[in-house]
């Protein structure tokens, strides 16, 4: 899976790095001073690197936990996100990471304990009030679990911090760690879903939506709070039919009464990201569709946006009450 490992010299002796090196005995191992030397140079092509992304193992020194953008949340007043991993195993054509980063290589920050100290500090600022921490903003929270051991490290940590909620956002079916763990009431395992037609066209290298749904059901039956993320909603000419069908299937497979939260967001990108992504994939129909630019963001035109949003919102509210439905406009 990974044939090149870049290792910051400063973390070469870290136990997590030793585990990773053992896991990929055939990989070429290249030492570097700082991950940015590999990750940030301009003359890189995200699409070409997606053929064989490397894993960069690094240490993070600051900005461990950041405030979540306005409009990003599932009910708490205080929302933060953190990124132990940059980039994703999957290759979804709508994903903003392609527009944000020069490189498709994965960057794994192995000093988890520093993230955890900062989470603890922030959570203790408001005792008795839930603070939400989102882990799948710049990556898929679980897809690289066998390599990163992220959930295995962070779940016991959050178990001891009941006011701190963590969202694991994923399209992965790597749920073994979770099934082997006593469910946490303050951990939402949030699965992203798109209709199978859209997934087949745009979500490359991802598990089939049916398999994701089965993984979500197993976790729900095991007692884990499950979140549903219908984001991004992507337009194509039979959108009503395919989205209605997907909502029906998801809510028939999972118990809607026990779904923690549902969020909805339309396909949207900052203009600069859109320009870069449509340049990377000029033949992609998604980028040639009925899009419009407003306030620095590219999304569907206002009329279409209202129509699609209204339809999806009505459909979702057939299954879950409004207090568990969240609009995601960040």
């Amino acid at each position: 899976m990974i044939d090149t490992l870049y290792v910051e010299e400063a973390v070469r002796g870290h136990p997590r790095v030793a585990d990773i090196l053992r896991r990929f005995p055939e990989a070429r191992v290249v030492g570097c001073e700082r991950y940015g030397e590999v990750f940030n140079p301009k003359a890189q092509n995200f699409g070409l690197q997606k053929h064989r992304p490397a894993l960069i193992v690094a240490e993070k020194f600051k900005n461990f936990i950041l405030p979540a953008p306005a409009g990003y949340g599932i009910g708490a007043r205080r929302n933060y996100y953190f990124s132990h991993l940059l980039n994703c195993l999957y290759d979804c054509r709508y994903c903003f990471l392609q527009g944000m980063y020069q490189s498709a290589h994965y960057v794994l920050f192995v000093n988890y304990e520093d993230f955890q100290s900062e989470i603890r500090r922030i959570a203790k600022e408001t005792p008795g009030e839930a603070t939400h921490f989102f882990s799948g903003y710049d990556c898929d929270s679980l897809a690289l679990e066998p390599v990163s051991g992220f959930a295995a490290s962070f779940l016991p940590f959050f178990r001891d911090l009941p006011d701190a909620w963590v969202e694991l956002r994923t399209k992965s079916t790597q749920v073994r760690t979770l099934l082997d763990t006593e469910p946490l009431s303050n951990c939402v395992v949030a699965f992203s879903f798109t209709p199978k037609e859209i997934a087949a066209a745009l979500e490359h290298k991802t598990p089939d939506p049916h398999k994701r749904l089965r993984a979500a059901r197993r976790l729900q039956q095991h007692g884990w709070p499950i979140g549903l993320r219908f984001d991004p909603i992507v337009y194509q000419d039979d959108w009503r039919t395919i989205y209605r069908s997907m909502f029906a299937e998801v809510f028939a497979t999972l118990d809607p009464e026990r779904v923690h939260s549902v969020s909805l967001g339309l396909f949207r990108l900052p203009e600069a990201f859109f320009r870069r992504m449509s340049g990377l994939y000029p033949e992609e129909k998604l980028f040639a569709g009925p899009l419009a630019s407003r306030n620095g963001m590219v999304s569907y035109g206002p009329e279409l946006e209202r129509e699609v949003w209204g339809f999806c919102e009505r459909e979702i509210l057939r299954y879950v009450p409004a207090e568990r439905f969240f609009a995601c406009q960040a």
Partner: protein
Amino acid sequence: MPPQSETFVHFIVALPAEAKPLIAHYRLKRRVGEDAFAVFEKEGISLTVSGIGKVATAAAIGYTHVLFGKRKNAVWLNVGVAGHREHPLGSVWIAHKITDAETGRRWYPSICFRAHCPSAEIRTVSQPETEYARECLYDMEAASVVETATRFSSGELVHCLKVISDNRQSVVWDIDPARVTTWVENAIDVLLYTKQALRHLAGEVIPKRQPNPEIWTSRWHFTVQERLQLERLLHRWRVLNDDLPLPEVPKAERGRDILIWLKDAVERLPVRLASSHS
């Protein structure tokens, strides 16, 4: 010269002895009238003999880039000899890290294909290295190749392949041109495979043939801004409509009217992502 929509490979080699096997294999022809560098070519391939060192290499790459029409995202492949303290003579290596020994600058070429030879770090030095103090290859061009060629192509398409010509048992002063030619000849399979793999990657990022806006701009006047809109709309039409031709263009006085008509035609197209050919 092949159009910009076809892939192109530029070989950069320092010495005539390194170039010989490639010229023979591809049956390259010397380009007449080029005095600054010996330049060879044939259908989608060029080979430039740069001379030794970073300055000569940078000049040769810039010269080649302009000479062959400033191609975007061409493949740049540096083939040459390098030293290492113990690697066997004639063994072939691809660079995964390149350090300019003078400036300390570093590059990390992304190997986005299955390499057919082992990879190594290269230190580019200004004088031949005889101590082999570090565990790496020593050459005199690689840093210049990546620094210069990545101005014109994406880094994934710029690589350095090195054949070991000297080590502690056989020092750099003993190298003779005939042996260099033999080593490169023996490495030809790796070179061909690498070139082919890179050409395949380049095929993904070279610009596709676009609809020709001249057909439109010769009939109607478009401002610079309108011309950009026209190109964007023609592109959307082609992508959404799988290259089907446009319906008959209505009679119109002004380019602006054409844009309104074309925008309406594009917006009416059904969006079917499933048949996307990205």
